[in-house]
């Protein structure tokens, strides 16, 4: 760790080696963040069980400084979407996401969270959480093994390493816009889609569509 932190480009005199470190602000800032990611205690489905196993002693998330799982979104940095996202649940997930303080990250764990998974065709299943909130890391598997989840978390650390204070959105002047919370109507509705929905439902049915519908 100290190696990547301490890349001075300056000669540190021998007698000060190990006493003085020269680094960049970005590096030390990211170093702190990458080693203390607090995931949200938030389980959706089967994958959550593997997430719990990852946190337990055999795989031990604590090695990465990530064992502090918080049930409150206000205190967390990372949302591990661990399981099938259903339409009934997605409004809550978006609200939880909006409540997380920045910087915040989302890891889609497993086939379901990444793209719908085995239940994709179901009438209550969302084809991946990225239809609603931005995702940083996808971990494939059904369920991903704890090793796979750890790999995903290491990838997230690598992503954090790449970020720079100058560019990150959470130090911009204006606060970032919350994501509109989907609404449960006859089916799930994303407020951003209203125009599109109207175009489709309020137009008279064309003969071609009619044929398709009855086929």
């Amino acid at each position, binding site marked *: 760790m100290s190696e990547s932190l301490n890349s001075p480009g300056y000669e540190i005199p021998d007698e000060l080696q190990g006493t003085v470190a020269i680094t960049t602000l970005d590096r030390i800032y990211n170093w702190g963040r990458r080693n203390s990611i607090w995931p949200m*205690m*938030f*389980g*959706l*489905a*089967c994958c*959550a*069980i*593997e997430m*719990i*196993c990852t946190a*337990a*002693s*055999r795989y031990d998330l604590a090695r990465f400084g990530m064992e502090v799982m918080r*049930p409150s*979104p206000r205190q967390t940095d990372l949302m591990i979407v661990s*399981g*099938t996202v*259903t339409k*009934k*649940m997605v409004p*809550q997930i978006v609200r*939880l996401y909006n409540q997380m303080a920045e910087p915040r990250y989302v890891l889609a764990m497993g086939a379901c969270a990444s793209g*719908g998974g*085995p*239940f*994709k*065709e*179901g*009438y*209550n*299943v*969302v*084809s991946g959480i990225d*239809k609603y909130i931005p995702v940083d890391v996808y971990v494939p598997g*059904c*369920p991903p*093994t704890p090793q796979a989840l750890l790999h995903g978390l290491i990838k997230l650390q690598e992503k954090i390493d790449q970020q720079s204070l100058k560019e990150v959105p959470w130090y911009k002047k204006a606060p970032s816009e919350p994501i509109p919370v989907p*609404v*449960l*109507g*006859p*089916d*799930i*509705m*994303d407020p951003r*889609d*209203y125009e*599109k*929905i*109207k175009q*489709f*439902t*309020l137009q008279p*049915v064309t003969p071609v569509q009619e044929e398709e519908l009855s086929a």
Partner: protein
Amino acid sequence: MTEQTLTPTLNLEERFGDWVTPDTRKGYEGYLVAPEHLIDCAAALRDEFGYDYLASLTAVDYLPDGKMEVVYHVSQSTGGAPLVFKVQVPREDPVTVPSLVSVYPGAEFQEREAWDLMGIRFEGHPDLRRILMWEGFEGHPLRKDWKEAYYEEDTKPFKSRWPAGQVHRVEDTLPFGKNVKYPQGFDPEKWTPVEEEALYASLKRVPADEDLPTEQLIVNLGPQHPSTHGVFRMAVTLDGETIVDLKPVMGYLHRNHEKIGERNTYLMNIPFTDRLDYLSSLSNNFGYVLAVEKLMGIKPPERAEYIRVIMAELTRIQNHLFAIGMFLNDLGAFFTPSLYAIEERELILDTFEAVTGSRMMCNYMRFGGVARDFPPGQLERVRDLAFNRLPAIVDEFDAYLTNNEIVRARCEGVGVLTPEQAIAYSTCGPVLRASGVPYDLRRADPYSIYDRFDFDVAVRYHGDVYDRYLVRMDEIRQSIRILQQAVEQIPEGPVIEGKQQYQVRVPAGEAYGRVEGPKGELGFYVVSNGKPNPWRYHVRAPSFINLTALAEMCKGNKIADAVIILGSIDIVLGETDR
């Protein structure tokens, strides 16, 4: 076997005259009851014949015949095969059937489910709201003429994928790029949402007091709450800290298991059953293959039977370990007991991984056997677990927890369910047995080869949270006993009848296969019409039905105890919501 378990010896026609007619369709069993006599008939079955336990209630849509059918499986709480009776009604809106909640309170949630998914209106139901989908959802999805947004064909494998092999998916042609559809003429901006008033209105209120005005306090726990074991929600009315009424709200993990299951071929469903109760996938496999084997009329070879029992009991042990660990989490002993439990569970998962290829989603049992034999060395490993490691672990748990002062103070006398209530609410598994009802399907209606083993049915008599914990501990011990006998007795031989097939031939008919899963009676009701896909595929989910009694257990307790009462039921949301 089939004859003996399926045909009840009692003669209902003698007692009920023309209220009932035997179901004579080929491959079907039981009786058809006239809707107008349903309640009387059920009450008589309960009071005169001892069928006091409603095991399962579900509906089938016989679209080609223009009929809807509600299927009831009732059992005697003293044991024995279930009795089936059905009600048929014409398939025109509104489809109405009398509600059986007055006879079997355990029907409450199951009828709500049938209303939600099949659109059957149960007359006289006290609180008929949707249960898995939300109020305002368009349509009743399990009806055969209801099509989801990603609908392609009625059954799999879809022609666009196989055998031609040109993959084009319906989702690519949908206008929103999402799994949604809206009725024609729907305007999202001129639409009034159906709020959750119905839910809150259904909650009982604190009785008004003239002298002391009390505030109504409604608290929602969940769906994102550390104690709800997933995405489960409870709406609670409080008087001070005391629970006046409670309604579970579920469906946050409703993954349309049954709809997908009816499109799948029989074999395709096995991996889906893994994901029901994802902590005990092998028990789920077991129940499903039993149901289909009943239809096919085949039996697995000896070695496979033993392997199934070994795997099912290992599953029970690891499930109970996990349940106890999580239960102590709920009690406030945060994570330390779970860490111990999970450590032991990992040992069993290693065996699962070595034998089945996966830690959790084992997809291991097949119709007529199991997918593959134990690899070399694994049986010895199981033997070591059964004789050395696991017994020591249970003792250790016992020493740390059972007489712990805080555990006892928090658990004893909390969430009491009397035996009568436990039976009436159709609870099952450890919840039922902790209330003093020694009903364990491995003894009550033995399946597979459980009649060969020497073990006791764990039972306790106080019906409180503490006894549910004790029953789980006892059950681990009994499972270890079964394991010890099974690893000693297991014979050599093939592990599957005939050769493995992608497509099995399942004759037309119906079957209800059930096993004693770690959570209780896990039943699969399968209707075949002779095609490669089931016509109806229903799961009788123990965690779902156990929740019917949750309100009863919680009333009068403190809100903090609702958390441990829920923990003591041990629900898994994948199964609750399916």
